[in-house]
């Protein structure tokens, strides 16, 4: 309560019972015979004579010593001057009431103390910021949901991300809001699909490199290495054997067709050798693409071998219809596996786009965290690359590596000499970690530190000490702010 301005309603609420109590007290303390007798006893120093006489008379005790007592008291009173009796008004009560009213009025003239006013403003500011951030995030997640497939939306809902964002609202405690945002961010970061996409992409990239190592710098290999999985799927589809769709190309059609089919199968086998090698190199990788690639490589190898044998048999005139039929089936199986891998690549592209959108949402979350913490403002307009989910598919350069799978930036610097670049915000589960960009600048860092110190209930003396400490250690370490070496990136 210290420092708060007492609202007028409170003053009135306190005054009304006080006035009622005063009236009741006045009624209760109205002058009675007994009270008057007691006052007279005290005033004339009658030693309870009048009170006793009154009591004896009331009890009808009138004879003998009682009459003597009454007469004795009467004689004592007769010698007194009744006009001298003054029963003073309840000055103390009146003075107390006036003092209380005056104090209430005086307090009413006070405004909130600067500290209380500042806390109030900070609470209002936090309410506004958390409400704004919640609205922006809700709009962002709504727009995101419209662009997602049912499966992707289900993945979001399974993690509870949409529900948590829907539950966001204005709160007075910035730390509570930051914890909620950090929890959402943690869940978005830990989505299982993210790991699956990363594993598939890693395998396919490795497969592309293996192909190039085998001097097969084909469009398929380049697309795989560059992470253009849709293009890779198209390039892969071009290597389809098509044995079932074109009767003229079936092994039974003609020896020429058999030879051509055998050649295509051989090229496919060569292409899939890289996939097999990558699969062996990444044997422990949990990847659907790796399994499909390995199966395709096995199928291509088997098909190629079988077609080559069939061709040799046919040239020797010893190929049977049954062998031809088996070769057809083998080729069809190979095509099916190729199609499955192609579908997986296209699905990977789709999931990558989903993750990119999710990353946009995480950026929004980061901005909202900074905004709620009072470290930055939200950009005006929902698509001013801030809040709101722009269509990543339309704006992103498809040649760019998908977010989260780009080359890792390795920063060098002296260990322990730079500022802490990780701000930890505890989530309810205790696992939430918010990572701030490693390109943090000193001013930003200082604002963060000062913001934390201001928010927490730190004694002023300690607060000043902590502030000076951080200022000194960072002012004394200019290398932290210089772009090199901490700012250098090494592939």
């Amino acid at each position, binding site marked *: 309560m210290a420092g708060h301005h007492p609202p007028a309603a409170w003053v009135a609420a306190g005054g009304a019972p006080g006035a009622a109590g005063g009236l009741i007290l006045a009624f209760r303390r109205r002058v009675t015979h007994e009270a008057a007798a007691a006052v007279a006893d005290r005033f004339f120093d009658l*030693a*309870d004579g009048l009170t006793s006489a009154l*009591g*004896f008379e009331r009890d009808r005790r009138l004879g*003998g*010593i*009682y009459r*003597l007592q009454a007469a*004795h*008291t009467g004689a004592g009173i007769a010698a007194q001057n009744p006009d001298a009796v003054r029963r003073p008004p309840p000055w103390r009560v009146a003075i107390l009431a006036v003092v209380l009213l005056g104090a209430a009025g005086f307090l009413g003239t006070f405004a909130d103390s600067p500290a209380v006013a500042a806390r109030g403003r900070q609470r209002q500011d936090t309410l506004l910021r958390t409400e704004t951030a919640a609205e922006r995030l809700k709009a962002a997640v709504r727009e995101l949901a419209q662009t997602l497939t049912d499966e992707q939306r289900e993945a979001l809902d399974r993690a509870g991300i949409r529900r948590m964002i829907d539950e966001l609202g204005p709160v007075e405690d910035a730390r509570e809001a930051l914890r909620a945002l950090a929890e959402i961010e943690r869940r978005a970061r830990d989505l299982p699909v993210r790991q699956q996409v990363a594993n598939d992409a890693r395998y396919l990239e490795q497969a592309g490199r293996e192909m190039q190592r085998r001097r097969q710098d084909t469009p398929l290999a380049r697309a795989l290495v560059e992470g253009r999985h849709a293009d890779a799927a198209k390039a892969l589809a071009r290597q389809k054997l098509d044995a079932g769709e074109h009767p003229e190309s079936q092994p039974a059609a003609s020896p020429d067709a058999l030879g051509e089919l055998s050649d295509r199968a051989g090229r496919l086998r060569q292409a899939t050798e890289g996939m097999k090698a990558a699969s062996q190199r990444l044997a422990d990788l949990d990847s659907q693409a790796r399994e499909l690639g390995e199966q395709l490589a096995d199928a291509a190898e088997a098909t190629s071998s079988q077609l080559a044998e069939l061709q040799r048999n046919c040239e020797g005139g010893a190929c049977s219809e049954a062998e031809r039929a088996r070769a057809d089936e083998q080729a069809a199986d190979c095509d099916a596996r190729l199609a499955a891998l192609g579908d997986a690549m296209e699905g990977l592209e789709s999931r990558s786009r989903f993750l990119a959108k999710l990353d946009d949402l995480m950026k929004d979350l980061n901005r909202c965290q900074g905004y709620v913490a009072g470290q930055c403002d939200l950009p005006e307009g929902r698509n001013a690359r801030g809040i709101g989910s722009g269509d990543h598919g339309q704006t992103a350069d498809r040649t760019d590596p998908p977010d989260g799978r780009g080359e890792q930036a390795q920063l060098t610097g002296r260990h322990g000499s730079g500022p802490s670049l990780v701000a930890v915000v505890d989530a309810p589960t205790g696992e939430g970690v918010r990572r701030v960009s490693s390109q943090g600048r000193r001013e930003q860092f200082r604002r963060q530190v000062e913001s934390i110190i201001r928010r927490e209930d730190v004694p002023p003396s300690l607060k000043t000490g902590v502030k000076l400490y951080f200022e000194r250690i960072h002012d004394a370490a200019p290398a932290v702010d210089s772009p090199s070496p901490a700012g250098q990136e090494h592939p």
Partner: protein
Amino acid sequence: MNPKDLLADSAEARRTVEAFVATFQAIRDEVGKFIVGQDEIVENVLIAVIAGGHVLLEGVPGLGKTALVTTLARALDLQFGRVQFTPDLLPADLLGTGVLMEVDGRRVLEFQPGPVFVNILLADEINRATPKTQSALLEVMQEKTVTVARRQHRLDLPFFVLATQNPIEMDGTYSLPEAQLDRFFFKLTVTLPDHGQFAEILRRTCGTTLPDVRPVADGATLLQMGEVVRQVPIDASVQDYLIRLVRATHPGSDDSGEGVRRYVRYGASPRAAQAILTAARARALLQGRYHVARQDVQAVAAPAMRHRVILSFEGEAEGIRTDDLIGDLCRTLE
């Protein structure tokens, strides 16, 4: 002095009260011949004696406690007995015992009364006797009877025990139990006389002649005075004040103050209220009034309750005086 007419005839009541006051004043004057100062002590002792109560006098040696009692006995023309309490004193030494006697050739056990069979018993340094011997006085003080060998022997009235104890020499003493303390009507603390009183004591007691104290009242007169006292009226409001005062000495009472709650283990008993009322009535008459006033209650509250209010360990450790606690209660409850 006719106590029975006190409530019927106002003229007789006046005469009775005047006789009461005159007798009281005569006894006080007679005691004052030998006892210098100690007016309040003397008055309170007389009030207790008139009320039929026992008095515990506490004070360092040489302040005239024993002299006060012996002088009072002489002024009242009563049988006086003195027992010096020592650790080896036995109950039989005090109450009496059966002695084999030969009567008409037969041996019979005949009761030989002890020193308690007097009107005024001076129990000197009562706290030096063992608890067993102290307890032997319980029946005597309360019932005014002695029971030996299943036979009850009634003491002559009036009967008072005036006991003394020394608060300094505590070695070899036995503190009186609460039950026995409660039997004492008053506990009076005898203090050192001032310079003038010292001189007067020396003048009266170190000369060639001692003051001649003569009896001015007898036992019957004392009993009548007690009857008179019991008829002094008290208003309900004053009696209510008295009851609240006694109840306030208990830590659990609503009226008890912070000091009582903190420093008192056990408060005064209803017997204390009886003592206060009787003593206040006597004091009212002595003050020339025909009713009990609050100031009478306040005047006798401390001697009637100071030995009945038992301090807690914290109170004793803090050196709290029961008189201060009682004084505070008197003021706050008025």
